[in-house]
């Protein structure tokens, strides 16, 4: 059940919209304004470092997901497939390449600038490497490769950190200097990292507010908005700081008032199911997908997707005292860079800490990094927590793989099963 949306407009939401629109505006005129741009990825992104050179980051994954939300991705993917890209591979890549072939008009209708540097930060996914090798063929610009080793045992080893820091010093920073024409300024980087850490505190506070009953946030569908500025271009900026300060205040106010999460149809007034969700959402039918949950009074209290750009809730903070080392630790610790056992442990802890009634996986066809192994994750969580798991399949931005009726059916049956299991009519 929900109550109308008008009363619930949050200032933070407005601010985020302004920030994102401003970012795309800046990008549209970047080259005219004499600014240089760096294409890079969300997991393990080095926003502070890039910005410390006054360079602007462009995140192709964000463009792809935005294209998905704006119903443009289907056409882009078809375009890429027409150009010879396999139907089997990650649709983020095809969406991006299709967009490029169709004039590189960004999600807000403005043209994106060509990259001055491709920063291939290879964190948690092999496809990233192929993606930028493909882009490399399209643009005449330097490429910096940052290889982030995997964490099979969930532990950061010194030689892994050293490897990344060395790559920053010998490969990345020289290229950033060359492209920007500026010298590496560690003091500036440190200032930014201090701001990041402060905003990260606030983000964690917001994510952990879902431990309340009712939860004041949806930590998956709502969560993707909350992580937006942090995972993209605003970490380490004043705008980012301000956004998270505001968001934290709003969430605290919701907790004090005993309110549930805001959805596109207003505030949820009933919390019947508390779920933990693994896997990315579908973007092409994002609202419809979300509605399938809130219509059933199901709220997501914790999700792994909101950790692809860092596990801040497990204590990691960017640290001005060890700037490059903490950036390295950040890269290493992103969710999909962790071994499966660590992922299972984390999800198990979420189910317990957030007192979830259910655990659900949205398995996306595109993403082997997330999806390979998810059926085992499901079994492990069931065994370890004693709660049954639900499994649905869709895709990120390929509308051909979102079968609404089927998914709705699965979600409903799953929730019915949870309800039967705990005895009819028991809600929070």
């Amino acid at each position: 059940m929900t109550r109308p949306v008008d009363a619930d407009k949050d200032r933070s939401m407005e601010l985020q919209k302004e920030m994102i629109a401003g970012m795309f505006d800046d990008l549209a005129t970047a080259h005219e304004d004499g600014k240089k741009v760096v294409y890079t990825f969300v997991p393990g992104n080095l926003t502070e470092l890039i910005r410390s050179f006054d360079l602007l980051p462009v995140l192709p994954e964000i463009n792809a997901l935005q294209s998905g939300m704006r119903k443009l991705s289907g056409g882009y993917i078809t375009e890429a497939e027409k150009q010879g890209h396999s139907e089997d591979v990650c649709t983020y890549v095809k969406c991006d390449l299709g967009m490029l072939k169709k004039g590189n008009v960004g999600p807000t209708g403005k043209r994106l600038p060509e990259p001055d540097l491709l920063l291939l930060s290879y964190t948690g996914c092999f496809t990233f490497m192929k993606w930028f090798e493909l882009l490399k063929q399209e643009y005449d610009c330097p490429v910096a490769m940052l290889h982030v080793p995997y964490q099979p045992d969930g532990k950061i080893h010194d030689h892994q950190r050293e490897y990344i820091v060395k790559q920053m010093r010998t490969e990345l920073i020289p290229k950033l200097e060359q492209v920007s024409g500026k010298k590496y300024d560690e003091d500036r980087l440190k200032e930014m990292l201090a701001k990041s850490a402060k905003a990260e505190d606030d983000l964690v506070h917001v994510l952990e507010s879902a431990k309340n009953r009712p939860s004041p946030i949806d930590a998956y569908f709502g969560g993707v908005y909350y992580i937006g500025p942090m995972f993209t271009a605003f970490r380490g900026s004043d705008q980012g700081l301000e956004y998270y300060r505001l968001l934290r205040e709003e969430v605290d106010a919701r907790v004090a008032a005993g309110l549930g999460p805001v959805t596109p149809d207003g505030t949820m007034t009933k919390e019947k199911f508390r779920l933990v969700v693994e896997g990315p959402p579908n973007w092409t039918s994002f609202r419809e997908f979300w509605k399938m949950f809130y219509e059933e009074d199901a709220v997501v209290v914790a999700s792994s997707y909101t950790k692809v750009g860092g596990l801040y809730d497990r204590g990691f903070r960017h640290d001005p005292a060890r700037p490059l080392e903490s950036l390295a630790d950040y890269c290493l610790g992103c969710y999909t860079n962790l071994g499966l056992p660590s992922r299972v442990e984390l999800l198990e802890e979420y189910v317990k800490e957030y007192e979830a009634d259910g655990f659900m996986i949205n398995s996306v066809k595109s993403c082997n990094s997330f999806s390979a192994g998810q059926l085992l994750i499901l079994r492990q969580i069931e065994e370890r927590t004693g709660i049954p798991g639900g499994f649905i399949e869709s895709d990120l931005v390929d509308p051909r793989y979102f079968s609404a009726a089927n998914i709705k059916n699965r979600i409903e049956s799953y929730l019915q099963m949870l309800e039967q299991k705990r005895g009819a009519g028991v809600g929070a």
Partner: protein
Amino acid sequence: MRPALKTLVDRVTFLYEDLDFTAVKEWKERTGGKAVGYMPIYVPREIIHAAGMLPVGVLGGGEGLEIIRGDAYFQSYICHIPRSTVELALSGRLDCMDGMLFPSICDVIRNLSGMWNMMFPDRYVRYIDVPQNYDPEVGGSFWRREIAELRADMGRIAGREISDDDIRNSIKVYNENRAALDDLYAARSRTPWVYPIAELYLVLRAGCLLPPEEHTALIREYLELAPQESDRKDKDHSRVVIVGSFCEQPPVGLLQTLERAGCWIVGDDLILGLRWLLRDVDTEGDPITALSDAFLVHSTEAASRYEPGNAKGSQLIASVRDNDAEGVIFCAPSFCDPALLDQPMLVTALDKAGIPHTQFKFSEDTGQFAVIREQAGTFSDSIRLWSEV
């Protein structure tokens, strides 16, 4: 076929078809040594060998394995090799492995290493993370450290210290194996009708199961025996290079189909891990550095490896030229991200070089080859016509 060759072919056929790893078990019994399995593609086998153990390439279940439980672990849109490998393990067939190595090749194999940890908690599992930075001081220092850890682990499993000389000796053994494989491929390229693709493949594949010394001897023997078959005659076939089969393997029947359809396969990336290094590894000095340097500088071009310059596809084109091939067949497993994402880049390079190509996908358990036969036949005809113009 003469008896000696028949015996050899029967042996490699048995090795290929035997999903119970009998040869590995027999080796263990005979020597009292241990066996360590590795998934495709590259691991420094020298380190396993230096510990007196048998490195065993585990390339999935192929066409002969019925998948009973493996499918329950993977969604339909994930390639076939992880499910057949899980099937092999759950059915006890991999119990003879005293450890499993999962090299850095794609997210599927990477995640499979974690699955192994959870499914078989008592067994040794290691993820082999190879560097994508080729500076000896940067990627090299990381890789040397990884190899050193592997060395320590292998020593522990074998129950003995691995000395530098042990590794140097193993480097020599593998250098000899590489030289034999090079000779085999050169001979095949010169006179493909003398070395039918199925034989070539099975001889190559035996390298996953046999100790390298034995494998080298087997290759040498095959190189002597095959030319003695007087009925092996040249045919009006076209010459092609196949690419994309570096991990999950096409069924032998598929390779034979290509040959029967009129294509001599004169270059390929089948079981690429056995042929990953393009040169001999240095046998002097620090052996870990030698292995590391060989990887950094002399690795083959592969989809799982970052290509820093703008030379993508240059090795493929060189292989076409060096082998006098007329075309390329992209032959990748369905849902194989590295191969399929690489493909458009290689296509661009081939188009620029004016080299014709065609493509299809397979699964290791594909049983129907009619469509592929037709496609390969048409391709072969067209490039022959094309080259006559």
